[in-house]
Each structure stands twice: as structure tokens, then as C-alpha cells.
């Protein structure tokens, strides 16, 4: 009988995408040396490897890079520091005791005892089945990310006449990519009355190519037996119910879905953590430490970001904190809950347990104009900012300083983020 090999590391990072790599780099820079990144794919970089469009890194590097280039910057750091990583390796379980079970071709199934684990598995796309679209199940229906893999990584074109459902950024990006590679994109249909993608992507991915974006529209039925032959779209009313009289058949051979991303938290759940229903990720403190001490969650597995730069920032915070945790330097001094009030859908982190400088990330639940964004503690106003326009597609940040938190004169209570 084959034995199960066993290893020991201080910090095991599950996922070698932008979050995992930034976490490793920052843990290293904080003095930690026993670090292992476990990546399921054949190379570091995660989903950035297939995001070959530009637009990454303006915050982090002050220049506009493509996904692979952004990833390469971190990959070089990882290699320069000599941080260990395993490729083609799948983590199958993370225990509450920080035992990691994984498998790869060289080691078979093996275990690692870690002092801390950073979960950085990223997210997946919402598939067709979850959207309640009727009809048969012909080929030619892909999530935008799957199409992106075929086009950008494998060099194949999965469609010629394309309709896109959902105006998420990947869908918009793929509208341009497919057009440049020779396909015709007939339109992007968005269920909500507003786009869920960034304004710049609507401009340069749709408007540049004359691709129409129809909000308050959805695909109600797909047609075709073998390959898709068309989709029926319809306008929806204010309750998002399709209006029958507006049904329209659009012939096409391809339907791309860009209808939302879901943090991939199976390992998190397996460790015994529960998820925040609003983010779909774990509930964390400002260090991105979950409710289990020594297990951290960062990047898109924690909450879906629209900018990789924010992922890197968040992962760096977590990496440094994991290093401090392992060195025994993290102490809980306060216990504030951060909660969302009017207009705000969620906040990350959900808890503050140390007095320190920190960034609150949050999203609004709908489009708001001319609102004041406030952070309050009881009747004390900690922070406020006037906002001309707030979109659900754009993650907002608020910087809180140690001094401001100390000035609250309390060690526990509720910090509320809202619009007024």
C-alpha cells in the first residue's frame, strides 16, 4: 500500500493567481520564508493568463498592462525570492486544523501541515443552468470565460455570429476579442437596467465596434437541436419579468454568458467556515483572517473584484498579516463589526479586530446619484465623501486610519457604511 506523503510549511497558499502570488510576495517581504503556493494549472497567473486584453495595473504599476504581463511581474518576484510553488497540483481539502490535502502526478495524494493557510482559489462563472433559460441544449452556449480560453489560450473560434447575455466585464471584453478575431457580435443583452461592466469597457469594447447594448433585456429561449441557431430575447419589466410582446428572435450560432461570478468556496466550506450570503465568500477581519484563526481568504474567492489591482492590495495585506500571525504578532485588541446600511450591498472586511490603517471595500446595490457616502459609529461620523454617481459594477473603497479608529474611544460596536 502506498503511503501518504506529508510535508510541513508555515504558510500554504491555495491558488497561484494574482491573489496567491501577491500574498506570497508580501508574506516573504514580512520575513516569512517557509511558504508554498499550490496552483492547479500548469503555470502561475490564474485567470489573468487568459485575460490578454490591456487594462491591468494602473493602480499597482502606474501603467497599463495585459493580464499575462501583470501576472508576470508577480511571477518574477516569486521566483526572485525563491518562494516555492507547485504546479498542476489540486488542493482537495483544507481542514480547520490547517491540514491541506492535495494531489499531483509526482506526489500522488499528499498532505501538508501548515501553520496558516491562505485561500486564493478565485471564482467561477454563473452557468446557463442557473439562469432559467428555456429550450433545448444545443452546442454553442458558453460562458464568456470558456470562450476566452478557447480564443486566447487555444487559438480556436467557438462562434461566428454571437449574442452575449449579461454585460459583465468578461462578456464585454469577449465582444471585442471575438470581433477582432473575425466573429460578428450582434448585441449584448443585460437583465438589469444598468450595465454590470465598467464604463470604459462599454466604450472601447462595444461602441468602438458598433455593438448594441440593451439593458432591461434578457434571453428567454435558445433554439437549435445540434448547434445553436438563434435566441429569443425580450425586454423585461421593472420586476425583471420578460414582456411577451417584445420577444424577438435573433439568429446566431453562439450565446456567451457573462452573468456574474461566484467565489469558488468549496474548500472554505469544507474547512467548516460559513459564507457571507452577500459576498459569497468567507467573513473576514481587516487582515482577511476568517473565523478560523490562521485561515485567510483573499482575492475573488473572498468577494468578486472588478480590478486586479485591488486583489493585489488585499492579498498583500493578508500575506503580511499571515506572516505576523505565524510569528505570533497578531493580537486582537478591539471588536468592531463593519456593516452595510442604506444603499450598500456588502462590506469587506466584516470585522475590525486591531487598531490599524485599513481600507474598507464595498459595493452599492443599485445606481445612485449625488449621494454622500458615510462611515458612522453610533452618532459619530468617521468619514464622508460626496459621490456624483455610484455604480454596482464599481467597487468603492474608503481608507480608515488607526488614529480615526482610536479616536472612537471604544473597543467594540458597529461601524456602518452607507449612503445618505
Amino acid at each position, binding site marked *: *500500500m*502506498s*503511503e*501518504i506523503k506529508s510535508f510541513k510549511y508555515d504558510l500554504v497558499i491555495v491558488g497561484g493567481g494574482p491573489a496567491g502570488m501577491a500574498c506570497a510576495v508580501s508574506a516573504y517581504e514580512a520575513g516569512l520564508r517557509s511558504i508554498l503556493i499550490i496552483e*492547479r494549472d500548469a503555470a502561475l497567473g490564474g485567470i489573468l493568463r487568459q485575460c490578454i486584453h490591456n487594462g491591468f495595473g494602473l493602480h499597482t504599476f502606474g501603467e497599463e498592462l495585459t493580464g499575462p504581463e501583470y501576472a508576470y511581474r508577480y511571477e518574477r518576484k516569486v521566483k526572485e525570492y525563491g518562494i516555492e510553488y507547485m504546479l*498542476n497540483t*489540486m488542493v*482537495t481539502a483544507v481542514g480547520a486544523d490547517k491540514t491541506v*490535502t492535495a*494531489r*499531483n*502526478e*509526482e*506526489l*500522488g*495524494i499528499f498532505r501538508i501541515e501548515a501553520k496558516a493557510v491562505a485561500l486564493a482559489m478565485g471564482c*467561477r*462563472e454563473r*452557468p*446557463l*443552468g*442557473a439562469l*432559467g433559460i*428555456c*429550450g*433545448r*441544449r*444545443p*452546442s*454553442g452556449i*458558453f*460562458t464568456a*470565460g*470558456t470562450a476566452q*480560453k*478557447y*480564443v486566447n*489560450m*487555444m*487559438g*480556436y*473560434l*467557438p*462562434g*461566428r455570429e454571437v449574442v452575449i447575455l449579461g454585460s459583465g466585464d468578461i462578456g464585454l471584453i469577449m465582444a471585442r476579442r471575438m470581433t477582432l*478575431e*473575425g466573429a460578428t457580435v450582434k448585441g449584448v443583452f443585460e437583465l438589469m437596467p444598468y450595465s454590470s461592466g465598467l464604463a470604459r469597457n462599454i466604450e472601447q469594447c462595444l461602441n468602438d465596434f458598433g455593438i448594441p447594448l440593451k439593458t432591461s433585456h434578457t434571453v*428567454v*429561449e435558445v433554439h437549435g*437541436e*445540434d*448547434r445553436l441557431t438563434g435566441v429569443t430575447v425580450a425586454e423585461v419589466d421593472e420586476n425583471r419579468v*420578460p414582456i411577451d410582446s417584445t420577444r424577438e428572435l435573433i439568429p446566431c*450560432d453562439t450565446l456567451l454568458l457573462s452573468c456574474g461570478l*461566484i467565489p*469558488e468556496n*468549496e474548500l472554505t466550506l469544507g474547512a467548516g467556515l460559513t459564507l457571507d450570503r452577500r459576498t459569497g465568500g468567507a467573513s473576514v477581519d481587516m487582515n482577511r483572517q476568517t473565523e478560523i484563526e490562521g485561515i485567510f481568504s483573499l482575492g475573488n474567492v473572498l468577494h468578486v473584484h472588478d480590478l486586479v489591482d485591488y486583489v493585489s492590495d488585499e492579498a498583500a495585506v493578508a500575506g503580511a498579516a499571515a506572516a505576523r500571525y505565524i510569528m505570533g504578532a497578531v493580537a486582537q485588541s478591539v471588536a468592531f463589526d463593519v456593516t452595510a446600511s442604506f444603499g450598500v450591498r456588502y462590506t469587506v472586511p466584516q470585522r475590525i479586530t486591531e487598531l490599524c490603517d485599513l481600507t474598507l471595500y464595498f459595493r452599492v446595490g443599485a445606481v445612485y446619484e449625488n449621494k454622500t457616502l458615510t462611515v458612522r459609529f453610533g452618532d459619530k461620523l468617521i468619514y464622508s465623501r460626496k459621490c456624483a454617481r455610484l455604480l454596482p459594477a464599481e467597487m468603492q473603497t474608503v481608507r480608515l486610519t488607526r488614529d480615526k479608529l482610536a479616536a472612537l474611544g471604544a473597543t467594540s460596536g458597529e461601524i456602518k457604511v452607507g449612503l445618505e
Partner: protein
Amino acid sequence: MFDIAVIGAGVIGGAVAREMTKYNLRVVILERESDVAMGATKANSAIVHAGFDAKPGTLKARLNVRGSELMEDYAYELGVKYNRCGSLVVGFNETDRQTLSELMARGEANGAKELYLLGTREEVLAVEPGVADGVCCALFAKRGAIICPYELCMAEVGCAIDNGAILKLNFDVCEIEKSSDGYIVSSADGKCVEARWVINCAGVYSDKIASLVGDVSFTVSPRRGEYVLLDKSEGGRVSHTVFRCPSPLGKGVLVTPTVDGNLLIGPNAEDISDKSDNGTTAQGVAHIKRLAREQVAGIDFSKTITSFAGLRATPSTGDFVIGVVCEGFINCAGIESPGLSSAPAIAEYVAELLAGAGVTLTPRKDFSGRRRPMHYFRELADEEKNEIIKKFPEYAHIICRCEMISEGEIIEAIKTNPRPSDIDGIKRRTRSGMGRCQGGFCSPLVAQILARELKLDLLEVTKRGGGSLINLSRTKGKS
């Protein structure tokens, strides 16, 4: 020249073909689709009924009870997951209570065993805590079971092939002609086989096949049933199959765990005219969701993985149409529910019919009915997995991350009878792509593995055979 030509590679054709390979017979299976299990077998309730539904005295009643008796051993032999989870028919009022008593009596008349009436809500809750408010009584069939129908069919056909049967896919029978020794069966594209006996297991098309030898005594119409499959996170809502007591207001739906741990709800019943229209409808899906909520508490439909529809082969006669039509031709037609439950009994019955018609059935000494479970690898202990990984490292390379399926398992499926040739075929055999992401991550990888193993260009790989292409051209260079 074959002794037996089975038309249709669904769960019935598979059972019959496997049964035939137990004897010294040369068997061919003709299937119009590019894979087995593509008709009603692919999309049904995945239930082994206890046998209280059918009218006493019918073939349905007899074969259901017999099939249900055989199924546990049958599934075990074929390495197919089977779970005798028990089923409940739940009632909401006094009329239902009366109906449940009648069902119980009918079941007992049919010979079904271990049926119990649960007369109070407390008794029902003690058996199944997941039932919704308002349920006040139930018929509990302890022998009700769940099984994966397409897995069963693949195992049956695979076993038949392993024992010498020939499977001809993409063989759409359009003509059956009497020859000196039997029949010549021809396909639409000009292929033909000759066999002494033809056994018609053609599902919704079984009336058309029967008519080719002049039997127009019945018709089969497609009755569509829609289903919703939910994530494994919802699989624990109930631990039994929960039916609703039939009433003048309708039949209700079932809510059941599946052998793979998901939750399945459905079906509705809609008579349609197109025998290939397995599309879902907004109304249908909304309807079954509403009914399911009335039977089982707290189902979270945001955890829906997919919805799908299947076509029952509903016979005009109201009962299974099984019998010798003329020398050399047997019908197993109009096999609607409880067809899956009856499958092993139908196969047994067909053997009896052949023997009765004077065919010599000499048992083969070398028949091997056992099959290794399709998912044996997943069930191994980590140490045992490592033994295999040491020899075949590809078993450590995970392709489908939702269901944790390795490249080794996919390659093995490609080399195991009945051999798949498309992405859906891999999905049904390995569960790769069956999980929450529905193949978003793994389908490009599966396509690459298929292309490599079957020596195809990636452009030739399909979702489901025929024209269901995945990629239409290369982005660069010559296409």
C-alpha cells in the same frame, strides 16, 4: 448474420441486449444517436418504483414489481449506484388519506412488499423531516429506490459489448425487410444488418419501428416531462423520494435525492407532437418548482444547476406493449414509467418470449455479468488511489474541479465500452462537467483529451455528436 438485432440503446434495449449475450446468440444493437442512453433514459425521474402505481393485472404492474425485486442485485452486478432510500407519497387531507389507502391496497395486490401507511404528521416527520407544512399522512414504500438511469444503461450496453455484442451508433432504422432467415434492417444512410430476430426497444419511436413490419396496432406519443436539478448543497433536503398523492387536481411532482447527492424535482406531463422536442419551457419549470415547494420545505432554487426535459414513450394502449408480433419480431414498445424499474424484468420476459417461440437459448459458460463500477476510483481510499497514481500519474491530474474528476478517469472512460466520442458522453460517464460550473472550466480540457485520444482535430470534437460542434474555426493560420 446476427441472431438478435436490438433496436434502441436505451435502458430497455441495453437490458435486453445484455440478457441475450448470456446465451449463445450473436447480438447487434442499433442506435440512431451518437451515443447510448440518449432518449427517455437520459432524462427521467431516476426512480425504482415500489410497484403500487400500476393497475393490478397489467404488464406494468407485474414487471414493475419483478423489476424492483431484481434491481438491487442487477445494479450491484453492473456496478451501478443504487440506493434503497424509500419513497413517500404524501397527502394533505382526508381525500388524500383515502387515496393512499387505495394505493396501498393496489400495491399489495401487485405484490409490492413493505408498504406502510403513516397516519399522522408526526409519523411522517419521524420518517422524513423534510416534508412541507400541511403534509398530514403518507404512504411509505420502504423498497422504493433511486438509481442513475443512464449509468445503468451504459453498464448494460457495455456489459453486452464486453460479452460480444456489437453496438452500431448513428444507425437510424428506416426499413425492416423480411429475408429468408429473418430480417434485413436498413438505416437511412444505407447501412444494413441481417438478424433472425429483431427486438424493438425504440422508445418514443417504437411505434414507427413496429409499423415497419406492419404492426400498427398501437401508437406511441411523446409526453414531455421537465425537471430541475439542484446542487449537492440542496441534496439533503429530503432523504426519501417524496411524491405527492395523486388527486383530481393533478399528479404533483416528485422531489428526490439522486444517487450522486443532488436534489431532483419534476416532472410535469405535457403531450406534445414532436418526438425530438426535449426543450424546457418557462411555464413548465415554474410549475414544477411551485409544486415541489408544497411537498418539501425550504428548497433553495438559487442552487439550481440545470433544468432539462425528457420524453416519455406513452403508448396508446395504456400498458407496455411487449410481445411477439410475428416470427422474428418482438416489441418492447411504449415503455413509459415504470420502465426503468421494470428493465431487468422486461429483459427476462423477452428471453421467455424467445424460448416460447422456439429459439434455443443455450447459456454461455463464459458470460461475465459483472462490471467494475464506473466511479470505482473515486470510492477508493487515498492510499489505494496512490497505488494507481504511481502507475498512471494521470489519475492525479484533476480536470473537473467541481466533481474532482481526473484525466485518468476520463481516459479510462474513453477506452471503456460503450465508448464515448463527445463531451456529453464523457460527462455522463465520468461526471466531468456535471457539477456547479457545468463544464465551464473543464470542457475545453475534456475536448483536448478527446481530440488526443480519438486522434481528432479539436474542430471535430462535438458536444453531442452530429452537428453539435464546439469550435468553428481556428483564429490564426489556415482553418
